[in-house]
């Protein structure tokens, strides 16, 4: 075994995606007995500037590998150059492939959204009123919203009652509050709610229940365990989500680090392509038991 110093820079550690990636990464290390890997975790709290600073400091510290999760690496150009100059490999998880990164492992946000969006609209049988939550500040949620917007064009029978851009810093409370207001405003006119990821979807479900609305179809994306459990409740209004394999991404990156940094294999041999897409299956009330 070889002792490694690794830094994992989380874009926003309060988000489940970062957490699950981290968990998968740690699990792989534990399973493979890499007790001499020393990993330090830096949280950028959602700030692009903090991400750049964290990468820069890690590069300067001279660690053996840097993992960046859920950031947008286009805003860390100079820091990546510093890592490159110091010959430190940078592994990106859902952070976009840019020059200076070994690989970006991710899922396809357009594809995930098209799966679940079409599913929702089909469940409505092309008729009904929709509340549309979006969030433009994160690239993933933005792409999902854009896809929904395009898909909607083919469903003239579905009317968007209201659109709301979620405030990222307090997304859960913001969504809950806004949904309450929409419930008061539209009442039983609401047939469906589209949320850009699972946590606001959960907030929407809570608010609907509190407002006494019981016949609304809600979808989320990410497939967080709590969301899958919610989908599995027969009477829950959350009808679908998409399971992103964050743990797998974490584990995959750990395995690559082992191969490239420890065993010294050339990156091109270990990693199939610059961007590696992992599958993200649609989860509905029918198949959810398989994912619990």
């Amino acid at each position, binding site marked *: 075994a070889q002792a490694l110093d690794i830094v994992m820079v*989380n874009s926003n*550690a*309060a988000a*489940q995606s*970062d*957490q699950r990636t*981290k968990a998968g990464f740690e699990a792989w290390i534990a399973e493979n007995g890499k007790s001499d890997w020393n990993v330090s975790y830096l*949280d950028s709290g959602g700030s692009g500037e903090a991400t750049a600073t964290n990468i820069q400091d890690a590069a300067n510290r001279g660690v053996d590998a840097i993992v960046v999760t859920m950031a947008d690496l286009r805003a860390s150009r100079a820091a990546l150059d510093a890592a490159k100059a110091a010959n430190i490999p940078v592994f990106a998880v859902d952070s976009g492939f840019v020059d200076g990164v070994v690989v970006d492992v991710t899922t396809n946000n357009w594809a995930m959204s098209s799966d679940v969006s079409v599913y929702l609209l089909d469940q409505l049988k092309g008729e009904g009123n929709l509340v549309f939550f979006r969030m433009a500040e994160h690239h993933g949620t933005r792409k999902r919203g854009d896809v929904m917007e395009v898909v909607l064009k083919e469903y003239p029978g579905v009317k968007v009652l*209201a*659109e*709301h*851009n979620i*405030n990222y*810093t*307090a997304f*859960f*409370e913001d969504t*809950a*509050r*806004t949904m*309450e*207001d*929409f*419930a*008061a*405003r539209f*009442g039983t006119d609401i047939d469906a709610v589209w949320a850009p990821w699972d*946590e606001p979807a*959960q*907030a929407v479900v*809570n608010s609907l229940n*509190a*407002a006494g609305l019981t016949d609304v179809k809600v979808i989320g994306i990410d497939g*967080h365990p*709590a969301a899958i*459990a919610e989908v599995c409740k027969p009477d829950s209004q959350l009808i679908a989500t998409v399971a992103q394999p964050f743990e797998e991404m974490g584990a995959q990156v750990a395995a690559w680090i082992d191969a490239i940094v420890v065993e010294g294999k050339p990156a091109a041999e270990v990693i199939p392509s610059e961007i590696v897409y992992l599958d993200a299956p649609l989860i509905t009330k029918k198949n959810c038991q398989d994912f619990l």
Partner: protein
Amino acid sequence: MSEIATSPQIDRVFGLVRKDHIQRYSTLVVLALMVLGFSLFVGRFLTSQNVMNIAQQISMLTIVGAGLTFGFAAREMDLSVGFTVGLAGVLVPLLLVGGTPLPLALLAGLGAGLLVGLCNAFFVTVIGIPSLIATLAAGSILFGINFLMTGGRAIYGGLPDSYLWLGQGRLLGIPVLAWFMLGAVAVAWFVMERTIFGRYIYAVGGNQKAAELSGVQVRRYRAASLVVCSLFAVVAGMLLAARLGSGQPNAGERYLLDGLATVFIGMTMLRPGTATVLGTFFGALFIGIINNGLNLMGMDTYIQSIVKGAIILVAVAVVSRSTKLNLL
């Protein structure tokens, strides 16, 4: 000595009354006009359902604001209050998920608030660090603690219904949260306006030297104001997690700026320049009603933000023209 100055000539008295009222109630008048406008032009604004929504939405903010009011009255600012909200909002769900009975978990939350308040008070009154710096540092420490407690993740599920009821249930047809808010406002108002404790808090904030010369134990009341701040913040935090049905380590952060806003707006009414509990309550109502009304109008988030800022400017302009407000 003051015969001349106080000889109450009728017109002067009327002049005085009018001017006083402009100063004290102009922000409230704007609030009333806003309510009227929304009632007339926004369909579901005045439904009981929506009124309950507003009450629920502002309750945590009001509770945090009420706590901050004690601090402001004593001229102490608690910049750690958002993280204290977060602390309770993570600690209590964590304990509950771990199987601690509800009353114990709530007590632990209060205990944590007491501890935070006492630490802040120690650094401010014993060591002498200005509260702005001490609580800024405390906020940094609490931020770390909140995230460490859960390893950064939010807590979902596994919370007992009795707990969720605090944040989502109703009592006598009124949201439990609203009861908490009204209770907190009533208690805070009573303490500040009707007890010696409150009087001394105001005195310490008004003129520390004078309070000292009158035999008021200044340190004790400065310390108390910070402890009360933290206690109200943990109550808000526990309720927030119950409302969200989830413990989120960073959910409290927005309560600092929003809480300050309620206090500032409150300082423009009733006794202009002074933080009062009722003023803060109306301040929270003000913000809550703008948010809710604009949401019901279906206004876009970003435009809402602009309109909200503009309304605040207009509302405060009237009193500002006639009184010199010193908030700092």
